[in-house]
């Protein structure tokens, strides 16, 4: 009886010219799954590094200058959702794809999710510390459509209603600055001796500044803190400067015209 079955099967194999498929062809799907998985991990990690870049823009002195309610509003309205969604998609798809690898079914859900998250966070942090994210965001910034998906870091700081403003100094007066934002809006920024100005911030034309405070009226802003975004970036790379810069800052010396 069994011999009959085997005879039928062998006959079918021979008559249909069925042959064992090559190892490469059989493993192609598995290789493809691994390739997509690797790409997703790198994508997720880069998205995470850009997310870290966003987080690193906040520092205690700046947060102090914005009211708590406004601060959270600012955080949520300026969250880089595009990158956040990309991180979540990478982690989710990474999890599902790892399950679909040849022996992926043997791994527990907790192990797979921990592994995927760990890979994204580790490579993402490495990309952040090696400043790949900076170059990447600058590169993306050149794409006009990118501004619609994820506003640049500069434009994220133009939110006068929420107490933050950033731009380039056009003119400097005794108790006020005129700055131009990235969207070419001109703002008058009022300051006095109570205004905290971070060390090394130069209030001179063509300098970029980051201002925390409140909107007084249309295109008029009262500053509580003023700092230089460039110095802020340098500060991150220098631990000695970092310690000094994280302090409350110094009071504004009388401005000399």
């Amino acid at each position: 009886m069994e011999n009959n079955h085997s005879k039928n099967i062998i006959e079918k194999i021979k008559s249909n010219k069925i042959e064992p498929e090559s190892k490469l062809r059989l493993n192609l799907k598995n290789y493809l799954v691994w390739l997509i998985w690797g790409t997703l991990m790198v994508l997720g990690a880069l998205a995470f590094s850009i997310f870290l870049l966003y987080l690193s823009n906040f520092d205690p002195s700046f947060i102090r200058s914005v009211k708590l309610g406004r601060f959270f509003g600012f955080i949520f309205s300026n969250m880089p959702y595009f990158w956040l969604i990309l991180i979540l998609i990478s982690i989710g798809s990474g999890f599902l794809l790892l399950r679909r690898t040849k022996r992926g079914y043997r791994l527990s859900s907790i192990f797979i999710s921990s592994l995927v998250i760990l890979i994204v966070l580790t490579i993402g942090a490495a990309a952040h510390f090696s400043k790949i994210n900076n170059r990447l965001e600058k590169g993306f910034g050149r794409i006009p459509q990118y501004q619609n998906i994820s506003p640049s870091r500069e434009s994220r700081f133009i939110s006068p209603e929420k107490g933050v403003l950033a731009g380039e100094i056009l003119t400097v007066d005794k108790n006020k600055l005129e700055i131009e934002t990235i969207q070419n809006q001109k703002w008058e920024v009022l300051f006095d001796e109570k205004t905290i100005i971070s060390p090394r911030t130069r209030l001179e034309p063509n300098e970029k500044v980051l201002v925390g405070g409140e909107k007084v009226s249309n295109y008029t802003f009262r500053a509580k803190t003023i700092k230089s975004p460039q110095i802020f970036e340098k500060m991150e790379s220098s631990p000695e400067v970092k310690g000094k810069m994280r302090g409350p800052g110094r009071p504004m010396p009388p401005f000399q015209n």
Partner: protein
Amino acid sequence: MPKSDQELVELSKKNPDNFSEIVNRYWTRLFFFIKRISYFSNEDIEDILQESFIKTYKNLNGYNSEMTFSTWIYQITRNTVIDEIRKKNCRVKTVQLENQELAELFSGSLDIKKEVIAKESFEKIKEIIQSLPYKYREVLILRFLEEKSYEEIIDIVKKPKGTVAALINRGRKMLLEEAQEQNII
């Protein structure tokens, strides 16, 4: 001296005639495995088996010693059965188990002696096993009728160890609760 599965696989790659030895070795075992986990008629099972063996032959180069050949061919057969069930768009309802198999499955699952089970209880036992969701019934059959180890079941059903252990435990618990409710034990 009979050749090992591994040797037969290598020989079959060179000459399909050698594959007949594999078919002869596994035909009966797999026939009853399909019968136990499905509702198909004997003719349908033969067709499914033929398809499974041809799939196995096509995939011979994909077999490696990470698992035993027996586990691998069970995995292919089980996938073919699942595909067939999906194709026919039917849920497995009728259990095609003989009294002897019912007793083995029931006693093995509940860790009791077969002799304790009264003959008149077989109908009730069949109903209980039939009422078990497919995913539980399948792993219990693999464990207590096919006598597969946990590691083998993991590879056959392609589920993680924790899930397989949970399915077996939950299935056993459901059987026990139902058996107690119907005063079988």
